[in-house]
């Protein structure tokens, strides 16, 4: 079973549109995982029917019990995340900002009056669903919650488990933008990363950083350029850099209205088979499979 992750560095390059098209092209042979847990969009196209829903509990959050707190201020001194403060200077009891709290537990352990509770947190929910192309594992991170990296790992592991049970050939992962914690969690130890970028100065800049991350994690990467005809020179620049860095160039998708039309119709681009964009994406899927076969 191959795990293919679709990532972008920069957001908004068309990662999810391509992931959804791949879902259609790999239909019945794949399990899908939406690892963009804090701005998930894949479900808007794949329209999952939820089969199983589970709470995601992870980490703790500190809470001062006002009846036990003497207002000594020890917790304020110890918290490294600027999460504890007295709201007004003449307040007796400090407050913990639940959003800034990273749940380290230092204040809880060292409060001389044992006045701080440390409850496990519900940080979101995750789902196993059915779609018209096969099973999908996805999640919803709670509002202003932490631990997106752990949720990504959970979604990936569940998708792998479902794929094994089903004997699926692929797990297709829609990753998140950036290079930080959820991205590292979606990339680590996958079979292949497909980087979707766009021919803009920022697309190029962010592509180099995400390519650096794949190299660092030892994940083989392919690159494709979306909306390539917006700036053919930049496209060439990206291609040249990719080859120079030993990445495989997977192809280009031309700019077109089909992307938005498909989104509004809740369909993937390849479900508009006559569009030029669909043809471009199919070519990339062929390239990805050729690459996987060679391994």
């Amino acid at each position, binding site marked *: 079973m191959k795990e293919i992750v679709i990532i972008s560095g920069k957001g908004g390059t068309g990662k999810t549109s391509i992931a959804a098209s791949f879902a259609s092209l790999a239909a019945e042979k794949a399990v899908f995982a939406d690892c963009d847990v804090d701005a998930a969009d894949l479900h808007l196209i794949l329209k999952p029917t939820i089969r199983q829903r589970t709470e995601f509990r992870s980490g703790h959050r500190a809470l001062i019990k006002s009846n036990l707190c003497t207002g000594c201020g020890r917790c304020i001194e110890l918290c490294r995340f600027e999460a504890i403060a007295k709201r007004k200077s003449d307040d007796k009891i400090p407050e913990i900002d639940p959003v800034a709290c990273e749940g*380290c537990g230092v204040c809880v352990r060292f409060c001389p009056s044992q006045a701080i509770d440390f409850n496990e947190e519900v940080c979101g929910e995750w789902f196993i669903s059915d779609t018209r192309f096969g099973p999908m594992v996805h999640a919803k991170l709670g509002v202003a919650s932490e631990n997106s*990296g752990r949720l990504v790992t959970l979604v990936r592991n569940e998708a792998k488990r479902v794929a094994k049970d089903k004997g699926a050939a692929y797990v297709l992962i829609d990753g998140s933008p950036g290079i930080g*914690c959820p991205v590292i969690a979606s990339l680590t130890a996958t079979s292949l990363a497909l980087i979707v970028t766009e021919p803009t100065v920022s697309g190029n800049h962010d592509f180099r950083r995400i390519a650096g991350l794949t190299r660092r994690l030892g994940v083989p990467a392919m690159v494709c350029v979306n909306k390539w005809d917006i700036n053919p020179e930049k496209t060439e620049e990206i291609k040249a850099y990719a080859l120079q860095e030993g990445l495989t160039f997977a192809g280009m998708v031309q700019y077109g209205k089909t992307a938005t039309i498909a989104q509004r119709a809740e369909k993937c681009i390849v479900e508009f088979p006559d569009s030029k964009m669909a043809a471009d994406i199919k070519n990339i899927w062929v390239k990805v499979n050729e690459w996987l076969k060679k391994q």
Partner: protein
Amino acid sequence: MKIAIASGKGGTGKTTVSTNLAFFLCEVNDNVVYLDCDVEEPNGHLFLNPVLSEKIVSSIPVPVVDESKCDICGECVRFCEYKALVRLGKTVMVFPELCHGCGGCTLVCPQHAIQEQPREIGFVESGNSGKIGFVHGRLNIGEAMSPPLIRGVLRQIHSDGVNIIDAPPGTSCPVIASIRDVDFVVLVTEPTPFGLNDLGLALDMVRELGVPHGVVVNRAEEDNRDAENFCEKKQVEILTKIPDDRRIAECYSKGGMILKDVPDVRKNFEELWNAIRKRVKE
């Protein structure tokens, strides 16, 4: 004044709006600062081309265990909420990438065997782009934790100036670290199903934080009212609508400033700024 520009979905035009807003404001205000908190993929510098004069390394304190003092009691391992410490045979191993730098293990160690050492996670650079003060953070590749670096960027806020904060995309910890103390959040969206879905998530987030906010619709199409309908339903003000214009896309792709290349958008930034000012005064 602190204004953050955010968006649930990436690529909606957050950086375009924030760099151009800073550029627009610097004509009338001498103390405008642009702070790029998208430290995973900072892009503002590509458009503002700042002259950078200062660089501060950002680090978090991580534990180092002195084996001669450690009697492997395991107190620190049990304490660490992030599993950054693991007992392996006769030693305690530290996994620095997992450490949040809370300092707890140092405090709980009965043998005083733990000391802290700074570990670099990235750096904050600052300088000027013409009249605009410029600050950005760059997370080192391979680092997972951006909030401490974001806090480093925000330490350079000018308390008496207008601060434009370019927040990272999404709705999790890095965004929250960027917007929790601002006066106003501008949420940039595009009128597509993905754009509006993610705008909904971003609205839930700013409402949870209790920060005043409004929406900029980017790439607005004449014949499509999806964004207007959505905002009406969610009862959120549209501050301005920037039209879908190929000239803007091309200018952006080359790293240009749309206020210079596409003069029609000046009225959008006037509208945006007037709307923000009205709301922040309230």
